[in-house]
């Protein structure tokens, strides 16, 4: 049966603002399917974003939605979650928003292991502002501000998240659409800070400059580079050259979750009163 997205989309908000072939729409659909699978209560679900094309996502979804300032989603969301720990708090945004201007809040949300899910749409570029390089643009690639090729090395978002203390880290791609909701479901179910990176495409500002003839070529690239973690186990280092692992990359169940820890602070303080 066709999936009923309308149940989650705010009436009259489609078509969305994203360009033809932009993967952000595919990710939004994955998030909606995940919320439906988990039967999340709309009134108790907050979707928080920063600024950028990806960060426009919350406006479409019929939940408590908060479109904050560039890079600040994790910090706003921490306030929502601390104030109402019973709410489901989901963060969405782009690679630039999350790893450049918002990098500090991102790593500290990981460190606290606060029970929220962060979906980061990595299209390797600042899409909204017209294609300047982001901390995720691969070295050598073209952006409007790296006309001679990007001299910067890029971040590996998953490694960054794991290193900073996130306790669930997964990666998918916009091409592997039917995996997106499954990863998000697992991420939301995980108690702690969960990060789902979705490798995405921006045909308009990234594809064009980097010799992708069409969005189809960009999708094909995602198809080719992605290797599920299970499959990778049987592959040699050589075979894995240039590939990107997908699936659940990291999971740790024992690290204390922040709002639960703060509940203990409240208990200790009340006892000391």
């Amino acid at each position, binding site marked *: 049966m066709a999936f009923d997205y309308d149940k989650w989309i705010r009436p009259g908000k489609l078509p969305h603002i994203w360009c033809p072939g932009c993967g952000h729409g595919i990710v939004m659909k994955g998030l909606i399917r995940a919320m439906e699978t988990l039967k999340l209560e*709309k009134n108790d679900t907050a979707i928080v974003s920063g600024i950028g094309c990806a960060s426009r996502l919350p*406006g479409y979804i019929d939940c*408590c939605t908060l479109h904050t*300032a560039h890079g600040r989603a994790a910090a706003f969301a921490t306030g929502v979650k601390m104030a109402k720990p019973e709410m489901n708090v989901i963060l969405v945004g782009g690679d630039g928003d999350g790893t450049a201007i918002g990098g500090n809040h991102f790593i500290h949300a990981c460190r606290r292991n606060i029970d929220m899910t962060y979906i980061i749409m990595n299209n390797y570029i600042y899409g909204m502002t017209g294609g300047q390089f982001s901390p995720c643009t691969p070295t050598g690639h073209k952006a409007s501000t790296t006309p001679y090729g990007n001299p910067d090395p890029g971040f590996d978002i998953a490694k960054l998240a794991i290193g900073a203390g996130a306790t669930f880290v997964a990666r998918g791609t916009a091409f592997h659409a039917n995996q997106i909701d499954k990863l998000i479901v697992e991420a939301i179910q995980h108690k702690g800070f969960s990060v789902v990176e979705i490798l995405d495409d921006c045909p308009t500002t990234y594809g064009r400059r980097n010799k992708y003839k069409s969005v189809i070529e960009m999708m094909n690239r995602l198809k080719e580079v992605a290797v599920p973690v299970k499959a990778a186990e049987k592959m040699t280092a050589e075979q894995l050259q240039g590939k990107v692992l997908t699936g659940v990359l990291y999971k740790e169940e024992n690290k204390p979750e922040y709002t639960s820890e703060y509940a203990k602070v409240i208990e200790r303080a009340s006892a000391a009163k």
Partner: protein
Amino acid sequence: MSKKVAFLQGNEAAAQGALYAGCNFFGGYPITPSTEVAEVMSVELPKIGGKFIQMEDEIGAMAVILGAALAGSKVLTSTSGPGLSLKQELIGYGCIAEIPCVIYNVMRGGPSTGMPTGPSQSDVMCAKWGTHGDHPAICLTPASVQETYEEVIRAFNLSEKYRTPVMVMPDEIVAHMRERIVFPEKGEIEVVPRKAPTVEPAQYKPYDTSYGDVPPLASFGSGYRFHVTGLNKMQDGFPTTKAEVVQAEEERQVRKVDANIDDIVTFEEYLLDDAEVVVVAYGSTSRSARYAVNAAREQGIKAGMFRIKTFWPFPDKQIKALATKTKGFIIPEMNLGMCALELERCVQGKAPVLGIFRVDGEPINPDQIVEKIKEVK
């Protein structure tokens, strides 16, 4: 029953005032000379089931309180100069999204790291013009420990009543001095609750002006779901670029304060009835000014003081009225003439405005002010 009395520091009084006002969420980042507020809140909030969080920086601290406020909390952050600069983008967010919050900023020497332990009054313009774009600004400048306590309560009330960020800005002297404070009984000082929606969730619009210039604010997780953005928005909270809507909404946001100046502005008139020379002062400087006015009177000069308690909105009306019957204004301040500019704007050349400006980390002493008073002919 006799009232509870204590000997408290300004910053400690601020924290106590916040608790009286029902503050149940604090987000901050340590910075001298404001840190005691965070320390007291970290002790007291969890005792009452409230939340304290030390964030990774002041931008995060501002963000976390705005998020918590949208989830229904009464929120406070405390900081000083460099931190206030960092918070600015999100103070603007609070203004446009109309989120009640209180920012307690202790004024120390600046710019930049400046003089962390030195007093100053050089953030008063930052309180109004620090964030970009047109926006409402409310800023209170208490002059004593008791007043810091009370003004923090008033700040919470104003932020709820007008659904906008409110700043309380003592200078370092007020924040760090210790004085006797008498605590009000519960209920003695009014505490204004957030105006909650009365309509069904399906009908709710976060910026519904049919309720006047200050629409009720629902909270996330209370059965109401809505959209909040820092983009110019329509009454339903969704972004718009429609010229007439943007214009109307911007004007309304500013009007929330501008149309209620008499409700917001507070001041003290000290010996002004027959005053020929008026010292305009605020914060700790007003303490020296009071002393100076008394000293000048002893020397036969008819001096008085107009003490600014609410710096923004500025008491234009009162200054304009004084300008018609005053020979001269003296403005002592611990900056290079910020309030003086506002005074000149209001006095409109009807009387001289003489400044005493210090930015050396030393307080302005009464003698300096008496000398200036004598210069008015």
